[in-house]
Structures are given as structure tokens and as C-alpha cells.
């Protein structure tokens, strides 16, 4: 990562790492752009970006101090971690609205969510299942009325027709499905249409970091925001940065992903308050929702779990894309 901006004196650089929730892709473009352009260095941070993986848990790595910052699963995993006593704090929320949608074929038997009954629905048991359960509950459908199965890596079972409803992220699986099926042959079910919002991709730090190094946290947020702003301002350049990091990625897909991610990151409360904004209402709704569905065992101290002071400390102008 070459730096375009003259960095602060090397001696003052503070080592830190960011653990992502997944492998490098445009979903995380802003961080890579910030690193590539030396924004972290300019803030005095020597940042290493560590990818995630299928069997890694960002919350755990941040809680134990193995990593300084984490882009973790989402509000659900932050609550779950707090519930289990992991000393982490959320300092920002990336995807302001639910990134998952439930996809079916237009000409198929599923016209409304009521038609899910008796059908085969696949979903990830890593968070998306809660959204599905919430949507079904809103419609008065019990989960055992349909066949809910773990969703595999591949969307082929859906494309082949052996699955009626498949879960997708806007930015990833939805792209794959669209590239393998005729245009306009798909119908989607969106969580927000059923009154559910499920913010995902949360930035977290350990409680100790939040308490002892608030400046570091703020500096990290400032640099990251700059990176994201640049990424959205110059999507081509951002995708270039990603392709340099992971050259085997599919460029067209990364460009699509960045567009979608921009929408997710700037929707909802972020439209007004800027990126990584922590929307207390959305968090509270999510909390009540998880409590109701047993994802967490007891009510949590929301103020301790979500510390909006850091993101609020960044001037609003710097937060807006």
C-alpha cells in the first residue's frame, strides 16, 4: 500500500489492526482505499487489514485483543457477543438497512409471503435466519410450516429450481443469481416491507480500547470515512484498489457490489447523519426484536453496547458521502 499523502513522522505511528467479517471485496472498499491513500498513516495509525473467513468470529478476535478494530457481522452479533459477556463496543454501523433479501422466481408458486408455507426456503443461520423468522412472525406464519434449510455456498439449487426461496445479499448472491437467470424473472421480499430493519456490518472495538484510546478510535473513524468518501467519489479507482488486493476477483461484480454497498451505507439514518451513524431507534428496535426471538437471553444495556460518541465526534461534513 503506497501512501499518496505524506505521512506523519513514523515514530509516532501506532500499530493497529482491522479484522473484516469476510475476505477482501468491495464490501470493504473504503478501508482499503484509506489504507492505500495513507489516510491511516496521516492519522498516526499503522493499520493492518486482516480478512475474515467462514470460521472466524470478528467479535471474538476483537474481544481478546488479537485485533484492535473489527467490521463484525451486524447488530445481531454485537448483541449476541454482549450477551455472552464479550467486552466489545460498537462504534459505528455500516449497513443502515437490512442487506438481505429473499428471492423467488416471478413465474413460480410463491407470490406472497403466505406462499412460503410448505415451500423449501434456504437461508444462512448466521443472522439472516432471524430476519426470515421476524418476517414470518409478522405474517403469522410459524417456522415449522415451511421447510427452512441451511443455505449452501452456491445458489445453484435455486437456479436449478430445487429450492423455492433463496436468501441473498443485495451486493453478492443477488448479482450471481441475476447473472445466471433471465432478467426480470425474479421477485424479492424485502425485510423493511415487513417493518423489520436489521442493520449489519458493525464497527467494533474492545471496551478497553474505547476507554483507554478514544483518540485512536476517532482517528480510525476519520481516516475510514475519508476512504469511503473517496471510494464512492471514484468507484473505478476503489475497485482498482480492491483488484490490486485480490486480483482473482471478478471486476464487474466488484463494481456492482460497490454500488449496492453505497446504497446500504447511505440509506436510512445515514442519509441525514452520514456514514457509520448509530441510529439509536434502529438499535433499540433490533434489540427488542432479538429479545423477543430468543437470540439474546436478557435485556442489554444499549448505551454500553453502542457508543455513538466517537462517530458523533467526527464533523458531520466528514461523515456525509
Amino acid at each position, binding site marked *: 500500500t503506497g501512501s499518496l499523502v505524506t505521512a506523519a513522522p513514523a515514530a509516532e505511528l501506532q500499530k493497529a489492526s482491522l479484522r473484516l467479517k469476510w475476505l477482501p471485496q468491495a464490501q470493504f472498499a473504503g478501508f482499503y482505499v484509506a489504507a492505500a491513500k495513507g489516510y491511516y498513516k496521516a492519522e498516526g495509525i499503522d493499520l493492518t487489514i486482516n480478512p475474515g473467513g*467462514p*470460521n472466524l*468470529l470478528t*467479535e*471474538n478476535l476483537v474481544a481478546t485483543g488479537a485485533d484492535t478494530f473489527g467490521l463484525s457481522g451486524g447488530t445481531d452479533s454485537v448483541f*449476541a457477543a454482549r450477551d*455472552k459477556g464479550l467486552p466489545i463496543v460498537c462504534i459505528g454501523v455500516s449497513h443502515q438497512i437490512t442487506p438481505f433479501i429473499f428471492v423467488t422466481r416471478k413465474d413460480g408458486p410463491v407470490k406472497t409471503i403466505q406462499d412460503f408455507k410448505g415451500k423449501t426456503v434456504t437461508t444462512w443461520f448466521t443472522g439472516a435466519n432471524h430476519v426470515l423468522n421476524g418476517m414470518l412472525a409478522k405474517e403469522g406464519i410459524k417456522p415449522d410450516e415451511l421447510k427452512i434449510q*441451511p443455505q449452501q*455456498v452456491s445458489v445453484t439449487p435455486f437456479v436449478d429450481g430445487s429450492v423455492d426461496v433463496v436468501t441473498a445479499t443485495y451486493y453478492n448472491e443477488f448479482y450471481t443469481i441475476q447473472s445466471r437467470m433471465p432478467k426480470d424473472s425474479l421477485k424479492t421480499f424485502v425485510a423493511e416491507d415487513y417493518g423489520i430493519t436489521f442493520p449489519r456490518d458493525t464497527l467494533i472495538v474492545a471496551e478497553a480500547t474505547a476507554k483507554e484510546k478514544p483518540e485512536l478510535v476517532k482517528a480510525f473513524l476519520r481516516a475510514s470515512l475519508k476512504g469511503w468518501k473517496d471510494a464512492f467519489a471514484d468507484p473505478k479507482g476503489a475497485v482498482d484498489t480492491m483488484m490490486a488486493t485480490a486480483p482473482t476477483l471478478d471486476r464487474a461484480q466488484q463494481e456492482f457490489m460497490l454500488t449496492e454497498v453505497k446504497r446500504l451505507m447511505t440509506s436510512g439514518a445515514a442519509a441525514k447523519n452520514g456514514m457509520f451513524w448509530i441510529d439509536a431507534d434502529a438499535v433499540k428496535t433490533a434489540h427488542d426484536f432479538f429479545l423477543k426471538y430468543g437470540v439474546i437471553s436478557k435485556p442489554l444495556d444499549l448505551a454500553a453496547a453502542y457508543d455513538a460518541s466517537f462517530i458523533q465526534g467526527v464533523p458531520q461534513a466528514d461523515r456525509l458521502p
Partner: protein
Amino acid sequence: MSRAFASPSLAVQRGILGAVLLVACWEGAARGLHLPAYVLPAVSDILAGLWSKRATLIDAAGYTLLEALVGYGLGCLIGIGLAVAIALVPALRSAILPLATAINSVPVVGYSPLILLWFGIGVSSKIVMVAMAVSFTILLSMLAGLDRVDRRAVDLMKSFGASRFGVLWRLRLPTALPLLLAGMRVSTVRSVIVAIVTEMLGAHGGLGWVIYQAVLQIDFVQVWAAIFVASAASLAFFGLIGFLERKILFWT
């Protein structure tokens, strides 16, 4: 004589002592250093967790063992079948063996993406993966066993007028048995591990699935409980084949 008589029980005592020491150190470290569960849970907590989740864990172990056993059986059949085919039709050797070695040089986990894409995340992909891993080991050990036969013994059989099949049945197969069974014993643990690894990449159930879910739910006590169960299941499978091996190979 007297030493040989005394040592088995002593060996067992030492084995138990070793296990006790390990558990004590583990427990001591976890409790003494107040390690949180997400770093290393105490053994007592793991056992308690194992007990409280026993129904789920036994179900999962059954699921995994089913995949492992079916894959193992299939793998053994394929491996033995190919080896016997090569023994009967030597021309097949130069066709099958290089291909088998080349395929075998890639770690089985490397194939998991393809196998998952081809066979889905159900039971069948695990069975295929296990069968693949097992069949290569079996093929190679069985071939080594079949080739180990004494040429003079083959001549002896031929001088009795035995056919190629007669030589195979009465001489080559029994000669190959020790190596085959050794390969089968080693493959037991591998079959369970491969099943679990594949489950962790996507499954409907099984210990690997439990471990994967438990990691995401930050339930490390359950992760370790599942590991304990997996280890016990592997050992039991290993012990079973080892027992059969000793029964069958009475002459060694």
C-alpha cells in the same frame, strides 16, 4: 518375562497419569488465569456443557458418524476394487496409478469447494469427500500389499496349476491383508475428520455444523464439547477397526 508381565499395567497407569496431568494443567490454567471461555474454557465447564447438550451432541455425532461410515465403506470398496482390478489386469496400473497419485497430491480439502458445488451441502457431499480421502489410502496400501507377495510363492501356486484368480484369492489377498487393514485403521480417524471439515463448510447437521454454529454463537464451551465428542467418536472407530485387525490378523 516378569518385566513383560508387569509393564502393561504400568503403561496403563502412566497413561492415566499423563491424562490426569494434562486435564489438571488445563483446568488449572483456565481457572487460575481466569481465562474467558472464548479463549479456553475449563475442562469441567466443557464436560458440564457436554452433559447439558448431550442430546444435540449425540444426534450430531450420529449424523457425522453416518457420513463417515458410509463414506468409509464406499472408499474401502472403491480402493480395494481398483487395487484388485490392477492386480488382475496389469495394464490398468499405468492408467490408474499416475492419475490416482496426481489426484491424491492435492489435499482433500482442496476439492471441497467443487464437491460442495456438485453434490450440495447435504449428506452426499460429505460421503463423497470421505470416500475420496479413504479410497486413495486404501488403494495405495492395498496395492503395496498385493505387490508384496513373494514371487516364489506365486510360482508355487502356479506349479499347482492355479489360475490368476486362484493366485489372487489364495495368496495375494491374504498377503495384502495386513497392509490393507493398517490402511483401514489409519483411515478411520481421517474419515471422521474429513466429514467434520466438510460439514463446517456447509451442512444440515453433524458435529462440524454444531461447531460452526457454536463459533458464530460465541459458545466456545459447546465448540469444545463437540470437539470432545468428535475425538471420542474417532477413537471408538479407530479402536473398533484396530480390534477387528487383531482378530483377523491372528498370524502376525
